[in-house]
């Protein structure tokens, strides 16, 4: 059978079979034992014409509702400058795979180098790798890194205020890598410092993982935490929403050893959950325990600036099972996305994004509380996200929101909703949401 988009014609196949000395494809596979050959029909729908396929997906797409987003919880609705897609869709970027003949792809290496430079600056850390798949896996890699660094310890503490999705990924990695993962309790929406101090003082902890802002949007005070960790040779790992680092205290300023997180908030559309990109930054002294690729700048034989993959001896293809991680690749196209975003926005732009988000979120929080139907769940400072307790019927409220075209308030407990406001939300949109609450 011949298909329009298959590269081999029937003549090609006949010629190839002839060279192999067999008559048919069935003869070619005769070596495969009969009982493991797949003999049924493929369970696939019947073929469709191009027009039918287009119609099918158009109908499917029309089931989507485009709602005004007041939800974050790890995925944020920020503005995507139009220039990004135009650059990103250039075939040189869009179709290139991770460079195995790395140094032949100077353009790719250069943008990865720029990404690393920007992430290091944003997090206030010394070095960055070439990017990770996403925030949760980057956090899990940081957990593994702390265990590799500690050599003989396998216990890692994770704050209960981390996003539950991240905690679940950590649990999965821990289970299959022999890591003993323990939670640090939470208290009024932040990590319980007394619980942290007690647990880290035992001296058997490889790493401590906390979040900033945390799952509830709270900005936690980590004064002295790094010191307590370092006194016991424990790594202090911070998971941060990348966009917020344009305004809040950086992991570098908190004296963290590893900074990880998702960089989706740097303009990448929410896109039903991906593709996103994770980042990982650390200290120079820990670079050999850091997973993933690293691009370095050097000079070629003529003294011209050139880019190379560096520190490869620590990677999995050389260190094999002794490497910190089996990651040998990066999330290149999405790293480029973030690089373009940051270069377009600049420091000032990113600060404005945060200022607008802050004003909007605080306005919404105040207005919700003023209705008398909501109260802040915690007494903590926050940036663009906050949890509120309510006396109203949450499922009814969410129904009313959706009818009005609003996707807002993630239910995180029986009586608690998590709201997020980014620079994308206008005062009118916030007022519309609050009016629905008032009318309830």
């Amino acid at each position, binding site marked *: 059978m011949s298909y329009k988009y298959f590269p081999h014609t029937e003549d090609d196949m006949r010629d190839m079979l002839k060279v192999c000395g067999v008559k048919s494809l069935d003869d070619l596979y005769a070596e495969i034992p009969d009982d493991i050959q797949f003999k049924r029909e493929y369970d696939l729908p019947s073929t469709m014409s191009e027009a039918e396929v287009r119609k099918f997906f158009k109908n499917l797409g029309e089931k989507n509702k485009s709602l005004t987003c007041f939800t974050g919880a790890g995925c944020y609705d920020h503005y995507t400058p139009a220039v990004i897609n135009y650059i990103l869709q250039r075939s040189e970027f869009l179709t290139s795979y991770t460079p195995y003949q790395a140094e032949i792809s100077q353009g790719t290496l250069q943008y990865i180098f720029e990404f690393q430079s920007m992430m290091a600056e944003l997090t206030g850390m010394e070095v960055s790798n070439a990017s990770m798949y996403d925030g949760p896996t980057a956090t899990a890699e940081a957990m593994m890194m702390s265990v590799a660094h500690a050599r003989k310890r396998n216990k890692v503490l994770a704050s209960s205020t981390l996003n539950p999705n991240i905690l679940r990924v950590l649990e999965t990695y821990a289970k299959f890598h022999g890591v003993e993962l323990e939670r640090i309790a939470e208290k009024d929406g932040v990590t319980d410092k007394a619980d942290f101090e007690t647990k880290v003082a035992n001296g058997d902890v490889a790493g401590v993982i906390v979040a900033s802002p945390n799952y509830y949007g709270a900005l936690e005070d980590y004064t002295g935490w790094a010191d307590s960790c370092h006194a016991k040779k424990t790594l202090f790992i911070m998971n941060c929403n990348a966009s917020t680092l344009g305004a809040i205290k950086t992991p570098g300023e908190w004296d963290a050893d590893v900074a990880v997180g998702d960089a989706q908030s740097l303009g990448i559309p929410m896109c039903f959950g991906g593709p996103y990109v994770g980042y990982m930054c650390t200290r120079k002294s820990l670079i050999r325990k850091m997973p993933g690729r690293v691009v370095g700048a050097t000079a070629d034989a003529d003294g011209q600036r050139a880019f190379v993959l560096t520190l490869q*001896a620590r990677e999995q293809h050389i260190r094999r099972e002794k490497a910190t991680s089996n990651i040998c690749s990066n999330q290149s196209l999405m790293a480029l996305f973030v690089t373009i975003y940051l270069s377009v926005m600049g420091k000032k732009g990113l600060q404005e994004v945060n200022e607008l988000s802050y004003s909007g979120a605080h306005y919404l929080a105040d207005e919700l509380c003023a209705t008398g139907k909501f109260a802040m769940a915690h007494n903590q400072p926050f940036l663009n996200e906050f949890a509120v307790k309510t006396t109203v019927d949450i499922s009814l409220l969410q129904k009313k929101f959706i009818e009005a075209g609003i996707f807002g308030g993630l239910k995180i407990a029986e009586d608690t909703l998590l709201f997020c406001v980014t620079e994308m939300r206008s005062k009118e949109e916030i007022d519309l949401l609050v009016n629905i609450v008032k009318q309830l």
Partner: protein
Amino acid sequence: MSKVIEGLFYAESHEFVKVEGDSAFIGITDYAQNQLGNVVYVDLPEVGDEIAAGEEFGAVESVKAASDLISPISGTIEAINETLEDKPESINKDAFASWIIQVKLSDKSELSNLMDAAAYTKFIEE
């Protein structure tokens, strides 16, 4: 032809052991540095760590490979050669002078499991 020094003990994983009183200096042999090429990093353990014969205690990284360091003997680490942190290339210049760790021996009889200079010379020729 790689250098081999008389009076030292040698392991099949190419570490040397230089005994001085109750303690021993451990490093990698001239043959090992030759095989590795330019050494760019030495992953050092910490003073006070207990190590057992046959156990990994660190790694040597060159531009083309990373190789684990295996302790030929058991004991407690008394000192680490901190100059290797800044000058890992000293291993290439003089491997036998660039000891990596100093260990307080816990069982001197383990030394009899190791090769002498003549046996090691024969070992690397094979």
